[in-house]
């Protein structure tokens, strides 16, 4: 079981780190988040924290995750390599988890590079490291969820662009729902703000670990991976 997942994620990770695409995406990610970082510390009252930066980063994830994941299953369908993968002694779940693990590796690597910002903050100021750690945990959970959504979108179409657009659309919807929540009342408002992906991130940005939100991200991720696996399985029945 583990062996197959590792074999698949090793292959995908190698592709990520051997083609310019991932570097370009990572550079854009770092440049954008870097911009928000500079902006957040150069306001009149610079909070020695990554709070603003973290919130801005989630916006960047919304763009980044669909682009990073769009290739993973769309290309397999387009090249027809899915036929060989699905006739190898590998379970559909292992295919999905293997691909997903590779994106997590890229996510963690990229987040590690942003630790540079933390070092800068420590250099120039005296930030509270506790909330900073919580912020990173939030980014990790948020990123993991967005990547699972991107991977699911990638299973829906053999066209990478279509996959990216679907993934972006879903993420945008999950974000906008949070904005819409205050416009409604009662149960609807409650439900909408509970579904919203950005609302769940707010606590982390404030340095608070809310179990609700942790559960939300984990459930969302598992659900998406499950749907991806089911979608692969259903291709067999067409």
């Amino acid at each position, binding site marked *: 079981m583990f062996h197959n997942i590792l074999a698949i994620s090793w*292959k995908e990770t190698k592709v990520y780190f051997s083609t310019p695409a991932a570097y370009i995406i990572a550079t854009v990610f770092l440049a954008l988040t870097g911009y928000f970082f500079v902006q957040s510390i150069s306001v009149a009252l610079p909070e020695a924290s990554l709070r603003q930066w973290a919130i801005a980063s989630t916006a960047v994830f919304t763009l980044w995750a669909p682009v990073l994941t769009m290739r993973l299953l769309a290309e397999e369908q387009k090249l027809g390599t899915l036929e060989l993968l699905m*006739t190898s002694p590998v379970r559909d779940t292992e295919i999905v988890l293997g691909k997903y693990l590779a994106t997590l590796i890229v996510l963690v690597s990229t987040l590690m590079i942003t630790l540079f910002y933390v070092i800068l903050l420590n250099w120039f100021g005296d930030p509270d490291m506790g909330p900073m750690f919580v912020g990173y945990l939030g980014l990790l959970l948020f990123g993991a969820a967005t990547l699972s959504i991107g991977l699911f979108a990638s299973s829906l179409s053999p066209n990478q662009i279509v996959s990216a657009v679907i993934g972006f659309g879903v993420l945008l919807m999950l974000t906008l729902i949070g904005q819409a929540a205050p416009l409604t009342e009662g149960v609807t408002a409650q439900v909408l703000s509970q579904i919203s992906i950005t609302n769940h991130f707010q606590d982390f940005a404030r340095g608070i670990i809310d179990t609700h939100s942790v559960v939300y991200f984990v459930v969302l991720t598992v659900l998406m991976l499950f749907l991806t696996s089911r979608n692969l399985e259903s291709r067999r029945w067409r």
Partner: protein
Amino acid sequence: MATNPQAMIEARELTKYYGDFVGVENVSFTIHKGEVVGLLGPNGSGKTTTMRMLTGFMPPTSGVCRIAGHDVLADSLDARRAIGYLPETVPLYTDMTVEDYLEFMGSIRGLDRDYLSRRINQVVDLCRLGTYRKSHIAKLSKGYRQRVGIAQAILHEPQVLIMDEPTIGIDPIQVVETRQLIKTLGEDHTILLSTHILPEVSLICQRVLIIHDGALVAEDTPANLAHRLRASDRVEAEIRGPGAAVMTALRAIPGVTNVTRTGEGDIATYNVDFRGDADPREAIGKLVIGNNWGLRKLNPLSMSLEEIFLRLTLSEEG
């Protein structure tokens, strides 16, 4: 576990509907250990559909298949472990090198490191990929990609090799080489390959399954099949004489099944079809002399294998 240890591929009443459309219907056959069998049929006859069910890529609408005794649906992973598969379009990861690709294909089949690197050396030699080992697959010609496809299919020394149109779309020299390679593989593998080229099966296979419109219509050795199908042979005769009378006389020769005439006037060419065991050439000679006509040419025409094949599929259409 295995119902018959010698039966490596068993298809029982395999049926696949695409919606209401019949892909294949009621296909049954058994392929025994060591056999090299051709699945022969024109485009759209259901070859790929059959192979996709055998390899577990898609389940049949109804029916059962077993590979090396393992049910493809119920015991899927074991069945898949026993198969090496070359799909029709030879799908490959174009951004990988040949070596990395083979390493990946070996690792998802659970081959351990030492064995895998030994096998990669072997299949690279066997498929003559040596010079391209470190090349990106995107840069390889179609013929070489085909070899990479075959290399991954035999990498894990599968008990059963399933190849969907292994010589389609590559240049003639590579076709000859690929056929030779398959013949070599046939010495120690059980192989099912599909093709729509009749001469190919007589070159490679010991047995042929002929599929047409989703149904198996014949099953035999290539030689027997050619013999059995030779319901009639043909001679071409150029005869000077009155057309209608010549036609009637030719038709009256025992064993002749059909006569057609081309050309007008006194001198015409007659195509005389006859049953395989009744050569009418001497009878035609006697007939012409007896009637005082002129025999200007008398040629046996052996029907091409393609023609026989066409006949077979046409005659089964009802």
